[in-house]
């Protein structure tokens, strides 16, 4: 499957190490329909290809947004792209967050760090049809106040879309008036109806384990808690073997899984 060239329309620096690229196909080519939670393989010329979630609005398939944290070779080359630059794109791949299953229910979203990127696409979809869902809450943990992503959007969703938002940081700076500590502490204080709630979690694996445990202990059913799992990935179509997670191919069966399907694999180290 060949990458398709996409043009960088906009680049925004989100934090010291994280940036968003807004991509479009050249000419009058149709947009890329996607579901929140899906990802694309982004190819940086000569450097390599990496899986990156789509962080933009699913109602705008003509503008494909990717929010990426620089952690190594390929993400660094992607970060150097500017408006007018070209990336190769294959996708979208994977399943998405369980939007249908969430209708009429409380939606509890837990994000850690760059894990907010695929959840941002979800928040666009949820807030576009706000009336379909009961309570919507986002609990989001970042390392420091400088690492908090999408501040303006979070504020907008809080004030005009009735989304309850709680942000916490691991380490505060002097100007930080918000909370300090782990997301699970915030989660504990959140009020929602466990019997009728859906949990959606994306972030570092340890955080996801604790967050899922917290939701379970509050009484949320294991089939109503969803996690987006990340592994090395080369092909995204179930042929390269890199993303195997127990019996699951993250690229094809995921990346979003109900907790009950990944519980054992998450518990055992290095599986």
């Amino acid at each position, binding site marked *: 499957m*060949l990458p398709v060239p996409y043009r960088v329309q906009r680049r925004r620096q989100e934090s010291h190490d994280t940036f968003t690229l807004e991509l479009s196909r050249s000419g009058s080519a149709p947009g890329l329909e996607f579901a929140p939670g899906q990802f694309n393989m982004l190819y940086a010329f000569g450097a*390599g290809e990496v899986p990156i979630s789509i962080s933009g609005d699913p109602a705008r398939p003509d503008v494909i947004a990717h929010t990426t*944290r620089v952690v190594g070779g390929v993400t660094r080359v992607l970060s150097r792209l500017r408006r007018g*630059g070209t990336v190769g794109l294959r996708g979208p791949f994977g399943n998405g967050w369980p939007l249908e299953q969430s209708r009429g229910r409380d939606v509890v979203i837990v994000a850690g760090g760059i894990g907010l990127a695929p959840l941002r696409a979800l928040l666009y979809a949820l807030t576009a049809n706000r009336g379909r869902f009961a309570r919507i809450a986002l609990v989001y943990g970042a390392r420091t106040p400088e690492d908090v992503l999408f501040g303006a959007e979070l504020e907008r969703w809080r004030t005009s879309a009735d989304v309850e938002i709680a942000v916490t940081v691991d380490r505060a700076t002097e100007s930080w008036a918000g909370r300090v500590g782990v997301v699970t502490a915030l989660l504990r204080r959140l009020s929602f109806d466990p019997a009728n709630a859906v949990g959606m979690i994306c972030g570092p694996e340890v955080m996801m384990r604790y967050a899922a445990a917290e939701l379970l202990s509050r009484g949320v059913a294991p089939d109503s808690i969803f996690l987006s799992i990340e592994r*090395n990935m080369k092909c995204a*179509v179930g042929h390269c*073997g890199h993303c195997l997670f127990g*019996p699951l191919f993250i690229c094809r069966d995921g990346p979003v899984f109900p907790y009950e399907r990944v519980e054992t694999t998450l518990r055992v180290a290095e599986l």
Partner: protein
Amino acid sequence: MDEKTLRVVTRAALEPLPGLLRDRGFTVVGPTIREAAIVYDEIESLADLPIGWTDEQGPGGYRLRRRSDEALFGYNVGPHSWKGRFHPSDVLLFQAQRNGRDVEFTAPPTESPPVALFGARACDLAAVAIQDRVFLGSASIDPIYATRRRGAFVVAVHCTQAGGTCFCESMRTGPRATRGFDLALTELLGAGEHRFLVENASERGAEIADRLASRPASSEDLAAARAGVERARTSMGRKLDTDGIRDLLYRHAESEVWDAVAHRCLSCTNCTMVCPTCFCTTVEDVSDLSREHAERRRLWDSCFTLGFTHLGSGSVRTSTSSRYRHWITHKLASWHDQFGSSGCVGCGRCITWCPVGIDITEEVGRLREAEGSRAP
């Protein structure tokens, strides 16, 4: 198999077979000797086969030895499997060319002349069927595999002797090939006549078989063929108890057995390279100095490397024990969940080619022992 339709072809009358295949446009690939091992490569005629040779195999050991006869197929499987034919170890995926701000991607041409596998064993045909499911069995079909696999002709050989590391009987994949071939041969050496029982399983197989001088099989020929396969069946060098194997592996996600094997395993990746079903790949991206032209290649990879699970902050499977566990659990357990069969066909290559002789059948035995000693 309808025994009444079987024909017998003498050693001399089999001579035209590779040529008949070549005349029909096939590249004929079969066993041949290179650097003291029997590998699969292009063959011109029967003379290229390892005539009169056999292989001695054991954990961490492989040696060719002369036979006392002139058998064409008197050995078992070597370090190569057919997977390299359909799933190349190194292949170009695309080229990228910069034109100003634009980048153009082009795929290499994929045509490939059809191949004839000459002398394919039952275990290896089971492995081909498994890789078919991996690369052709889901919504995303691998075009490289599909092109090379398309139209492949198969001349199977039923094994009449088993090697020291063979256990196809345990995996129910051999020693008799039951599927996936056009022609199948059973080599018969007794009764003073070197001959082959020929079975055809397709129209194109029949068309070719008809061109070989043959006579109807006698009841002695049939009995000798059955006895040969039976001899292989009862002389398997290894045995693997597959009863409840999937759950056995899953139950032992945490086990001291993995630490013990990790003390010996060198993470050298040999087992995954020689395995006819292992399919993992990585990619390599390069660009020329001008940064105008780039290409991406796909290479075989192995779950035994540290980098295999590298992502951002490090690797998931850093310990050798976790990598061995991953490999064997995939082969014997999760493969069932993913592809509806075992990922191991019992060919024994991973045992033979492991430099320290780690034996998949023995490791399963250790898991069973560990379980037995813990049971009340």
